[in-house]
């Protein structure tokens, strides 16, 4: 009797643990199946027509890449800097605890509140208007806790012996960090940053409220231009598609391209991350 319920429980947990993988796989193949026919060269390089129900999504693709790249350029250095401080220099005192607490707090702020903030502070307060710059800064606020967390973890994970050896050879602390710790933590930091990039690519509400909805028939050039990103575009046309029409394929195609972009960044970093975590932690992680 006991044996049977044991096996049952184990089976249940096994099934439960596969649910995330099944869900992710189902969603990806659902989009692939329905959207693959929409993705053509014309789709990727064309402009939206008829309010997005026909044509292509080039401005949105460029907008996405532009904003995410700019966001990372801002969030990565600050995140790595903060992570370095927390892992290397920070004494275990109240201030450090406060800093950690605020990082967690920032991480927990709903994206839409950050969007509202971006709107009042960046679009209106600083007078940047709906622009790529506003969007990138607001996105950077969102991603910052992640980059801090990732950097700190990666730096902490470097075995202390590395540092001792370097210091014993006469190197200063900063030189040690620069030439030893960063090098060892580099793979983890990079993969973590790439995961953060994935999050930035998928963010909708923040970008819509700070970068606006783009300029008709125009590809964003200056960082002060308003630009549309793929998730924003998807959201805007999602409510307007009739399930029986051609425009449905447009929406699926957009979702697929967005997903592809996201996966291109996330999957390699996840795989690399596992590989490197195993190298440093052994199999106990």
């Amino acid at each position, binding site marked *: 009797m006991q044996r049977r319920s044991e096996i049952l429980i184990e089976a249940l947990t096994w099934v439960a643990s596969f649910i995330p993988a099944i869900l992710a796989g189902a969603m990806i193949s659902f989009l692939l199946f329905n959207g693959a026919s929409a993705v053509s060269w014309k789709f990727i390089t064309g402009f939206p027509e008829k309010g997005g129900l026909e044509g292509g999504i080039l401005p949105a693709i460029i907008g996405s890449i532009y904003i995410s790249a700019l966001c990372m350029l801002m969030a990565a250095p600050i995140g790595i800097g903060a992570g370095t401080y927390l892992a290397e220099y920070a004494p275990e005192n109240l201030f450090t605890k406060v800093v950690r607490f605020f990082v967690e707090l920032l991480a927990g702020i709903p994206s839409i509140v950050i969007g509202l903030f971006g709107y009042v502070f960046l679009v209106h307060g600083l007078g940047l208007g709906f622009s790529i710059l506003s969007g990138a800064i607001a996105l950077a606020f969102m991603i910052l806790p992640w980059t801090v967390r990732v950097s700190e973890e990666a730096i902490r994970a470097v075995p202390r012996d590395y540092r001792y050896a370097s210091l014993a050879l006469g190197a200063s602390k900063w030189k040690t960090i620069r030439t030893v710790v960063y090098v060892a933590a580099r793979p983890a930091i990079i993969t973590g940053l790439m995961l953060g990039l994935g999050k930035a690519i998928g963010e909708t509400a923040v970008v819509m409220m700070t970068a606006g909805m783009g300029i008709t*028939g125009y590809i964003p050039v200056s960082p002060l231009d308003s630009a549309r990103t793929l998730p924003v575009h998807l959201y805007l046309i999602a409510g307007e598609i009739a399930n029986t029409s051609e425009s449905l394929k447009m929406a699926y195609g957009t979702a697929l391209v967005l997903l592809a972009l996201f996966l291109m960044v996330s999957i390699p970093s996840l795989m690399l991350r596992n590989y490197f975590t195993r190298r440093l932690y052994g199999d106990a992680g």
Partner: protein
Amino acid sequence: MKMGGGIISNRSLIAAFILVAAAMFFAGYLTSVLALSNMSQAGAKTVTKTVIKTAELNIRLNIAGSTTVTPIVEEAARRFSELYPGLKISVAAIGSGPGIKAVGSGEVDIGMASRDLKEKEVEQWPDLKPFRIAMDSIAIVVHLSNPVNGLTLEQVAKIFAGEIKNWKEVGGPDKPIHVITREKGSGTRDCFEHAVIKPFGKEISAEAMVQQGNPKVRAAVANDPLSIGYISLGFVDETVKPLKIDGVEPTIENVLKGTYPIKRNLYVITKGDPDPAELMFIGYLLSAEGQKIVEELGYIPLYSVS
């Protein structure tokens, strides 16, 4: 245990990172320049006028308002900026009411509306100047599979007021009616209420599902076999079925003849007299080319262009 990646120095990695990001910027810049030059070449070939090199101008026009007018203005903006590449026009479809507020308060340059200005609006912003760019009507639409072909005006009013709740009461199957309406700021909703609901002394039911904008109403009706909604005549396409009202089909001829009960004007609105860029664009909308766009998209042009 070997240290990770010791051969490439940190410095060169940082350099690589900055290079990649810069490359992304340049990619965006180059593609846009390329795309722009391609477009103006195509534009120059197909248009008989001379293309004015306005790339140095860098003018922005912000337009916002009615979702009914948006397709016209968007298509016109697209073609217009091919002619004048320095002109950047952004169009936001937020509804007639918010559009009028936006142009009145100066937040945008041009507003779009699918109804006449209300008294309160004229009082608050006396310098608003509406320009009629097209005419339009409103069609009552249902799902393609719905067997009902027509209703009386009173039936329409009762359905939207929530008094008739089942399709069987009007000749359809025994199923509940899903009523879809526009949001309160919509010019289309105002016209609909004015022409259909208010004459019978009723109000649109609070149970109705609200969809913001013509495209969403059309999509909602196209996806729900039990639904009924109202959209701009220009938005009727093969995904929905328009109903006859009192036996009259919603066609452009019937609207012009006056046999179809709903007719309205579409406007673009400026605050005060339009400045040169706005004037150019409005002129384009009123020109033969602009009116051709109106006709192509299914609205009623101000004068005959074919």
